[in-house]
């Protein structure tokens, strides 16, 4: 078990380094100086992009697809919860996840909802014609690895017997993170910041409805 735990730590560090390298490489494409005077505030734009701009009502795309939005939110909360469980496991504090406690029960709900969310998004992707058309193998693999990881975190909460499988799934997931779409765990923040700055400077953000 100890070897598996060390393996997870190594894979986690590897993923972090690889993601950092990718972010630095993207940044190295350069930032052009901006000459046009701003009419709005880049900072307000960034705040909007990470705040109200992420609410389900801020965008038509999420307003009109509440189920997809809800599945996505559940999925991501589940992933964060699973990562939290993994961290507690690695530092030997797994008792904090005990489903007999209120926080442990809340964690269990998040993990269950997250696994359902991931499964729901998987079904949605392959049951919807235009999403099937957009998809590449990375979409299936990334979803399966992540959903499996969340589901195994939920299982580990119930039985320690699931721990080796959870640790193995975590290693696979962490190894895959820099290769496919899961790297949006870093680039999401980079992109949203750029978007917020751009539309903030121009006075488009915050959006007025």
């Amino acid at each position: 078990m100890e070897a598996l735990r060390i393996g997870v730590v190594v894979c986690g560090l590897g993923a972090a380094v690889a993601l950092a390298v990718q972010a630095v490489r993207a940044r190295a494409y350069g930032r052009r100086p901006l000459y046009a005077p701003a009419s709005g505030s880049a900072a307000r734009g960034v705040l909007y992009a990470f705040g109200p701009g992420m609410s389900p009502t801020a965008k038509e795309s999420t307003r009109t697809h509440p189920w997809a939005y809800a599945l996505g939110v559940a999925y991501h909360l589940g992933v964060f919860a699973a990562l939290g469980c993994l961290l507690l496991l690695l530092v030997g504090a797994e008792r904090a996840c005990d489903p007999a406690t209120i926080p442990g029960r809340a964690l269990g709900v998040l993990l269950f909802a997250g696994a359902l969310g991931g499964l729901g998004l998987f079904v949605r992707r392959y049951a919807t014609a235009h999403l099937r058309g957009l998809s590449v193998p990375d979409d299936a693999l990334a979803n399966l690895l992540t959903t499996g990881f969340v589901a195994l975190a939920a299982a580990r909460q119930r039985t320690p017997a699931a721990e080796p499988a959870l640790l193995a799934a975590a290693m696979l997931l962490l190894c895959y993170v820099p290769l496919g779409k899961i790297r949006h765990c870093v680039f999401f923040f980079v992109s949203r910041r750029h978007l917020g700055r751009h539309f903030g400077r121009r006075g488009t953000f915050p959006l007025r409805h």
Partner: protein
Amino acid sequence: MSETDALEARLAALTDEDLSRGLDLFRAKLGGAEAAYLQTCVRCGLCADACHYHRTDHELASIPAHKLAQVAAVFRAHFTAAGRLAPGLTGARRFDRDMARAWVEALFGRCSLCGRCSLNCTTGIHIAAVLKAARGTLTEMGLIPADLLQVVTTSLETGNNMGISRDDWIETVQWIEEEMQQDVGDPAARIPVDKQGARVLFTVNPREPKFFPLCLQASATVLNAAGEDWTVAGEGWDLTNYGLFSASPAHGGAIAANLMASMDRLGCGTLVIGECGHGFAAARWEAAEWLQKRPGFRIVSFLELMEEYFQQGRLRVDPAKITERATLHDPCNTVRHGGIVEPQRAILRRCLADFVEMTPNRAENFCCGGGGGQLSMSRYRQKRLQSGGVKAEQIRRTGARLVVAPCHNCIDQLMELNREYKLGVVIKTVAEVVADALVRTPAQTLEEHHGTVAR
């Protein structure tokens, strides 16, 4: 050889060296932001309905994420380790002749660079910025529809995008000035040309002197009614800049330099961009970046200036003069890309008895389909008209008989949509509405105006 055939011939003739050069060009157009955007898409597909092309043709190729994927595939294949190691897994594809053809169709044929998808992306990708970088690459590879390039070339060669000679321009201005004097009953109303040191240089879309003189007359009427110290330029008066659509900084910068030179020559304090969406975005936001120089003067939209006049009490209007129901079209380059959202609304609420908004509106507006240079690309005409169906339906739902559109490309498209979808509407600029609603005081000389208006 037809335009379509000519572009096909250029695609077929691409050599490996051409493609390699294309990649270098593409690489040079990417900044840190674009490089991040290209690695962020999770293909959730929620951008699909944001696009007026996809809303009307329901084709996979029209989904913004699909258009982005065409560009991201090349980025991955050539510029990322994962794309080189596992192209099948990540959807990476090398930049070959087929891919170049796919880019042309996606970036010129199915996108007006309206940016609506950018605002609707769940992960925050400015999709339009990426597609523009790729469009610029195609332009510099010579893979731009010839009729779009022709508009740029005409601007570069003649100083305006319709090739209007200086004599014709001056003659038209004089004729419009006479018409305006008769219309307002004020022989002192002027359209000054090349007035040194005027406070405001007013710039014009060549479609106004060529096809819509009443628009220019309306703008001049408003400027005179406000007692503005203004001028048009004898040279360098065209506000349009199709460099925004060819996405070539070289084109954009060379055309923008005309306006900057006029400002320097005439010593005006404020450059006013008449009602033209892309012209405003080009002059206000892009020109400084293309020329890598901060302008030494203020650049404003005529919408902002008119609203300032109202706030300063320099214009008086009677909304009872226009009683028909009216709605406002939000040009993407004025509103979403330009940040000019409320002035036009404030103006219209003053001038109109029955003003209703489209749904959605403001930065969430739908493109009319005429943006991104689509009006000049004949090969995509049917697609353009089809994509405009979203806007036609928006207009129809308002029940308006008057559509106000502060953009000439939009007006051209809306006029075609009016015929195609039998909307039965009249289309006007904001200045035309203001001029129609003006309450004219007894004739005053400009000097009297200037003496009484505090600035």
